[in-house]
């Protein structure tokens, strides 16, 4: 119970354990189907080839290889969405949650600065999201080989790291909106809206010519392209996603320090 950081994580342990169980389950459900898919690789590839080019790019084009399969089934939507939901929830709760349940006054009546509380909450969100990412990576590395999926650990880590960074970018945005407004539902709503919107932009841009510039505004662009599980994590992409998270937290501090808190 020493600090805001440890207390926030401690309070979350049960929820985090369930998230970990969910991630492992999602992972096993994915890897366990790979043998079926690879046996029928030819027909799946045909099905994939019949999709419009944009969708094909979104799901990954090399469906039959282990890496291509994981990219399509796990890393194109499933894993990032799960981590995103966690991070957006944690970011929204961080300040706005305390404020809405009226525990913020007591917390801030101690000699702890507002920015200290916020940074501890941000650190808790980062630690927990990275932890969940580690669970996911471990699950892939452990459950892959029995189902004919053997990918280098480095590639798995790269793909998961991309997921985690994407989640933290949106978690940071949720934290900033929550710290600025003091309202959790607003933080969740606005951030989920931005996430859905920027995903759509990224997907649309794949099939609509001339949207390339718009695509670069979407955090998903820096996650999806290139496919990290195959080619490794692109440092520029990682920096862009990390920067979104860091800048969001900085904005959160700025907004939180100067605002009237609701009683």
């Amino acid at each position, binding site marked *: *119970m*020493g*600090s*805001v950081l440890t*207390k926030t994580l401690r*309070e979350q342990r049960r929820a985090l354990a369930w998230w970990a169980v969910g991630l492992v389950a999602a992972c096993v459900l994915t890897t366990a189907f790979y043998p079926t898919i690879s046996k029928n690789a030819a027909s799946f590839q045909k099905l994939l080839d019949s999709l419009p080019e944009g969708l094909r790019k979104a799901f990954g084009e090399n469906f039959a290889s282990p890496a291509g399969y994981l990219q399509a089934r796990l890393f194109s939507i499933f894993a990032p969405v799960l981590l995103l939901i966690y991070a957006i929830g944690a970011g929204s709760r961080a300040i706005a949650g305390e404020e809405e*349940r*009226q*525990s913020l*006054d*007591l*917390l*801030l*009546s*101690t*000699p*702890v*600065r507002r920015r200290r509380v916020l940074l501890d909450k941000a650190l808790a969100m980062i630690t927990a999201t990275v932890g969940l990412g580690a669970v996911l990576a471990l699950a892939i590395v452990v459950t892959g080989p029995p189902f004919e999926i053997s990918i280098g650990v480095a590639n798995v880590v790269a793909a998961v790291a991309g997921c985690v960074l994407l989640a933290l970018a949106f978690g940071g945005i949720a934290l900033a909106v929550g710290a600025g407004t003091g309202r959790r539902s607003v933080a969740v709503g606005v951030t989920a809206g931005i996430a859905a919107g920027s995903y759509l932009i990224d997907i649309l841009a794949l099939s609509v010519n001339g949207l390339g510039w718009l695509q670069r505004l979407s955090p998903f662009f820096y996650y999806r392209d290139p496919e990290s599980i195959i080619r490794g994590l692109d440092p520029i992409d990682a920096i862009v996603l990390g920067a979104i998270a860091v800048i969001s937290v900085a904005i959160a501090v700025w907004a939180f320090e100067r605002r*009237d*808190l609701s*009683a």
Partner: protein
Amino acid sequence: MNPSVPALEVERLTKSYGRARGVVDLTFSVERGEVFGYLGPNGAGKTTTIRILLDFIRPTRGRASILGLDSRRDAIAIHRRVGYLPGEFGLYERLTAHEQLTYLSSLRGGDDERSIRELAERFDLDLDVRIASLSHGNKQKVGLIQAFVHRPDVLILDEPTQGLDPLMQQAFYRLLHEARERGGTVFLSSHVMPEVEHVCDRVGIIRDGRLAAVEDIDDLKGKALKLVEVRLATPAPSGTFDRVPGVREAVAFGDRVRITMAGPIDPLVKALASHEVLDLQSREPSLEEVFLTFYATGDDG
């Protein structure tokens, strides 16, 4: 630290919101060692004042300070020396009372385990129960304990006794007494007149965001009206009690007479002695009634 600096001082303090419900041009100070009651109806601006003092909200104009420390610039130094009970607060439902209290006290950098145990015993609070299953009164105890636990120089308590049963109120009053013995200062908001009378040396009365008066509690008691209602066996002719010293108004209806009076009640009791009295009730006027009598402004009085 310069002992001549007041424990608490606000100067032309104004907080405007778009709507009403702010405070306007408040100026008053509380001396060290004083128990100061901040009295006013709900929504008058008590909580707004307190939350400015603790830097949760920022004033539109004016300034506030505690022990000579500026509420904005030195907020952290103030927090170190203040114990605060919010009027409404939430606790962490998943923690036990003990975990909640150790959390807050560890953020103060102290190990107050003994103090926590001792206060819990005095308030008859089971520390191992989860907050979620505590009654409102027990949550209020947790709030009070965290305010007192680090023996602060200044206590700022927003409606401290709400939800406490009478026995626990007594325990609270004893704590206040001890805090003052140690030389502590107490700033206590309330909308309950008798409570303020019971514990405070001085009161500031706030209404509609403005300071209506700052008075010694004894002066205020002298001014306060009493309402006496008597039931007589035979109705008294009208005007019977009008000339009794201290009586402001006597209204008879049926066998009852409702008398409003100030000062000692003895003359009225003597006057009643010549009648057969079936029942007599006396009560303190509500705060609102005091306002109407003494602080009414021209337009709404």
